[in-house]
């Protein structure tokens, strides 16, 4: 049943030009950064005289592309997540889902899975693109894997937050703006507390936890952070929709 909802969401994302345009634009951006990375590699590396300053092409290009991905998704995810629930509210299509034999958990998780599946297309695309470096060099697949996994968790967290804000309002644009602001704050939160490495506030930041994945390290503490974040916002969304049924 979760799959049915996810399929419906994917279908409706591709039924409008929105999904295609966002995919195309993002792929164009990633492709450009990839190309720039490859072009600049020898230039930069030949300038690095000491061996310690030199590092592999995977990391050099990967840093470029994954850095861009985590930043650009800040804008893309709100645009995709905004309509998940708020548009159903506005068009009054929620009764269609509520009167089908589905629990609210299934509806929410289905929508979440649908959006994450859509974003995964991009993650797979980036992974494949970077893997093409293997044709002329010997690349570090572990680095790509860790980064892909980190990006996946990051985007899933973005989606969960976006889904929650989408459930609060019947105006998709309001949902998008709220999601963007919240994501932006969570992204740069660690910058404000950069002076104090033990700060609890900094621990809440996405970037703090994405960093280890970006360096090629899969740390269980970071995985748990992202999972808790996702679960928290999914539960909040479920409670929000449940309140609709109870309070009307």
């Amino acid at each position, binding site marked *: 049943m979760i799959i049915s909802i996810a399929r419906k969401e994917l279908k409706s994302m591709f039924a409008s030009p929105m999904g295609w345009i966002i995919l195309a634009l993002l792929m164009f951006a990633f492709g450009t950064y990839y190309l720039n990375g490859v072009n600049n590699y020898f230039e930069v590396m030949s300038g690095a005289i000491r061996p310690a300053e030199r590092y592999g092409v995977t990391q050099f290009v990967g840093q470029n592309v994954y850095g861009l991905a985590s930043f650009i998704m800040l804008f893309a995810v709100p645009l995709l997540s905004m309509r998940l629930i708020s548009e159903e509210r506005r068009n009054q299509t929620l009764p269609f889902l509520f*009167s089908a034999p589905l629990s609210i958990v299934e509806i929410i998780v289905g929508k979440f899975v649908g959006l994450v599946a859509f974003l995964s297309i991009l993650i797979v695309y980036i992974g494949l693109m970077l893997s093409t470096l293997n044709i002329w060099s010997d690349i570090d697949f572990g680095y790509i894997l860790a980064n892909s996994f980190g990006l996946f968790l990051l985007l899933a967290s973005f989606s969960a937050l976006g889904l929650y804000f989408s459930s609060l309002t019947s105006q998709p644009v309001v949902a998008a703006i709220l999601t963007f602001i919240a994501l932006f704050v969570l992204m740069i939160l660690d910058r404000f507390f950069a002076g104090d490495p033990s700060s609890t506030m900094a621990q809440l930041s996405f970037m703090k936890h994405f960093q280890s994945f970006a360096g090629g390290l899969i740390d269980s503490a970071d995985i748990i952070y992202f999972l808790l974040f996702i679960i928290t916002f999914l539960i909040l969304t479920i409670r929000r929709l449940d309140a609709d049924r109870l309070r009307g």
Partner: protein
Amino acid sequence: MNNFTVEAIELTRLYGGRAAVSNVSFNLAKGQVLGFLGPNGAGKSTTMKMLTGNLAPSLGSVRICGIDMMENPKEAKKLIGYLPEMRPLYKEFTVDEYLTIAARLHNVERKQIKKSVEIAKARCGLGHMSKRLIENLSNGYQQRVGIAQAIIHNPMVVILDEPTVGLDPVQIRDIRALIKEIGQEHSVIVSTHILPEVEMVCDHVQIIDQGKLVFNGDIDVLKRQRMGNKLLVGFSQMPALEDVQKIKGVAEVVLAENNMLRIRVEEGAAPQEAIVKAAVKQGWGLYQIAPDQTSLEDVFIQLTYHDAATSEAAA
């Protein structure tokens, strides 16, 4: 074990302190069509939302074929097809896509999906619209898609909230025929403002006003009241009321609009012939004699505004 398909037990819904629906109880058996009548804001839609599990009742419970909606919502919802007042259509899909999704969400078996989509389309006269985007369909066709969505999984209970709103007369006739057809095998609940519609399709009627059931019974009871015991008679030479009153079987004579007389007939009497004879004999110039047909509206108004009047008087 009884064979009621829908049992509503003391349904109450409070919004803030105000009761939108209070203490509504009724049963519906298999093969019945129930008409839900009431003025705007009477609680028709709220009751339907509670029946379909879209809204939790503050008090009371709903059972669909013996399955409690609160305790076992998934099983109960499987047996219901629901068309809300606002059509829940995803306008970016084509008719086929939308109905396929509806079938999938309602647990129609994978192999059966294509077939049930075809059947639902055929029943609602949507065959030639399969590949059209719902957004581009006319109002009436969108309504048909809404109905198709509600019957796609062949549910035991079909609940339609004002299904004929915005349709043209031909479509209304088709939809009424469809409701009757569904009503033969399953139970149907239809809400409407249109009284003749109730008479045409329903065999049970409920009138709800200010959240309370004010009438619950067989359509025949209403029909009898509608056919009524009143005659509307027109004379070009208006006789004295007493003369008409004297005719055997006439209980009461009142002057009605357009210079006609409304004659209440005694229970079981049929004074039509006597009236005609008297008119001919005394040259009253009879030009019309007909049963007074407006009384269904009267019944409705009596039932719904009676309470309003008394509560106003109390306040």
